């Protein structure tokens, strides 16, 4: 019973952490272009110019 006193808050806190993480990702536009994100990892960005063209 005593373990519940801190286990429940810990469980809830972790859940809420995940939730707020998701909401943050949603708000900051991480889900705007899922297809693009999947393809972009294939782009070599060794030259600095490539990064400069990114807007976000």
């Amino acid at each position, binding site marked *: *019973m005593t373990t*519940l006193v801190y286990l*429940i808050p810990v*469980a*809830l806190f972790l*859940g*809420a952490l*995940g*939730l707020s993480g*998701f*909401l943050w990702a*949603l708000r900051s536009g991480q*889900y*705007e*272009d*899922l*297809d*693009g994100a999947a*393809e*972009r*990892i*294939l*782009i070599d960005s060794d030259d600095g*110019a*490539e990064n*400069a*063209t*990114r*807007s*976000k």
Partner: protein
Amino acid sequence: MSCCAPGAEMALDLVNAGSVLPSSQEIRLASRSLGDDLRQTDLSVPTVHCAACIQAIETALGKLDQVESARVNLSTKRVAVRWRGNQVPPLVAALGRLGYEAHLFDPEVDNKDKTLSELIRAVAVAGFAAGNIMLLSVSVWSGAEGATRDLFHWVSALIAIPALAFAGGIFFRSAWNALRHGRMNMDVPIAVGVSLAYAMSLYETITHGDHAYFDASVSLLFFLLIGRTLDHVMRERARTAVKGLSQLAARGAMVLRGDGARDYLPVGEIEPGMLLLIAAGERIPVDGKIIQGASDLDCSLVSGESTPRNVAAGEAVQAGVLNLTGPLTIEATAAAKDSFLAEMVRLMESAEGGRAHYRRIADRVSALYAPVVHLTAFATFLGWMAATGDWHRAITIAIAVLIITCPCALGLAVPIVQVVAARRLFENGIMVKDGSAMERLATIDKAVFDKTGTLTLGQPRLVNADSIDPAMLAIAGDMAAHSRHPFSKAIAGFARLGGQHKFDAVTEHPGFGIEATATGSTWRLGRRGWAGWKARTGGEGKHGYGGTVLTKDGFIVATFDFEDALRADARAAIDQLHNAGMCVEMLSGDTAGACGEVAKMLGVDNFIPCLLPSGKVERIETAAKDGHRVLMVGDGLNDTPALSAAHVSIAPATAADIGRNAADFVFLRESLLAVPLALDVSRKAGSLIRQNIVIAIVYNAIAVPIAILGHVTPLIAAIAMSASSLLVVGNAMRLQGFATGASSAIARQDRPARAGAMAQSS
């Protein structure tokens, strides 16, 4: 809005023959200011589909002088460019050099999708709450007792509050809206069930009871929200895909002022009496009269006429026609709001017929279902009160009945099938505007087609290429490459590869043809009367398809016959519709001769030529009065009122903007097999929906007696509800397994087009 060098822009437009590029004035008009001299332009680039495309576009645009940044969105096939300064960077030209066609789209319509992000947030909150409450509930089910159980119930109650307030709000608002207007929808029993379940559970918690339904009420919301979000995503995707297609309406025009100054004005600001300069390749923005110049006009979208019209000074022109060959100066005779296009919009609005009264299956079911459920719960309450007199027990059992009948399966039964069906259609290049379109399509018994641009491609095809001397054909092909007249484009396809003829000079005479000089002789490709020797007067009558010749120094060396090319698989599509029991009819604004030929080739049952837009609407309304449910397939501006008058409508992607917006389905590929495929999938979806509703009703028939007898515990409720939902979802997935001849034929036929246009579906 005075621009620096308008002449230069028009020259640029002329260089890029073939497609209509947005001019830099249009780009400026469509861009939005981000403050501090920074502007953002969103371009739709339908052919971007991989990482290499992204990199090429972003690098090329980033290198342009004033461009601050460029970012491609692969999901929506758009590129957002931020730039500075007064001069518009040559964005479209830069993309054109890379081989990407770019279009502007209306920034006004493109509001960020607020509903979707609200739905996703609601799903996230409901999912979090459902997971945690379920965790606590499992402990209770497995034997937690006394103070521990109370503690768990209290924690659950606390977690459920934000979920109900935030995620449940969507249902409460919708239910309230329906009730306020005296209607009933599926959200009413959901809202009642969820809130009563919560209230009772709270009471149980306070009085140390052993049954609380927090898990049921929250996980119910979670499941239903998933269905709703998928439904929304499906419609949204179709909407953006349709919007991404090129904008056909002119958004502005170059106005010639009295003092010789040139201003580029948006369509809305053009007033009667203004002089407009229309370059070759531009659409005419408002009704007007030609003051100067001669040209050929492509009226296919406006009147359905397949042959380009030859015009000269003094003639009237309608808004929406495409100026093909020569620059024109026209005097506007009507403002945009009084032009042909606006007239079509008015006709369309007044024609809004059958579909406005259509009630979706889900609404019809819920109108029956909700009262029955609520009456059953009430009767249960009365029965237990009469039998035991224990009001607490009676209420508990009545609410358990409400919870177990809460239409989770029923709420998912319709949307989940429609989402799966829409995805199947999407993979085959067909966009569905909303689920009710599929329900309506499943019921039709008569299909009406427009001719030009729908059954045919609206592009002439050379039919006698075999009987023409190949050397002459090659010469004609090289000459034709200099013009954007549809006949020229048809001939240009036969130009000999590699071996370009050396002409000293090539000039296009708008309305007549092309003239080329080479080593002393004069070649002419065009109208018979003009191209013939010394017959320069141009006084010949109107020539049809048979009137195009190639001459050398005035002697005719080849004649060209054209016909309007049929859309791919038109015949097969009509046959499949016949097999499906449809009566197929063709309505056209074109001549009886042209219609008769096409009708005979395709095996159309019946056709009516020379129809005005209002004639088409009348024809459809008459059929509807005779008890037919009519499907209209059309692409032109003149079809738009008919598209909205019909029970359900389909338009090809090449249709005019308002036509695409009026249609319920839009197909992106050339093949007309899209029509029978859409019909087939809609019918299968219809039968799956009915099966799902039966499953949901059978589930209730079993679960409700158990609930009425008072044997339902939260554990049983949770199992029963999830099981029925899974059953319904599983049944919907069967739609993916149905392979049809139509769909595989389409898939086989245009793979490349799929890669370009449809990469979005992944």
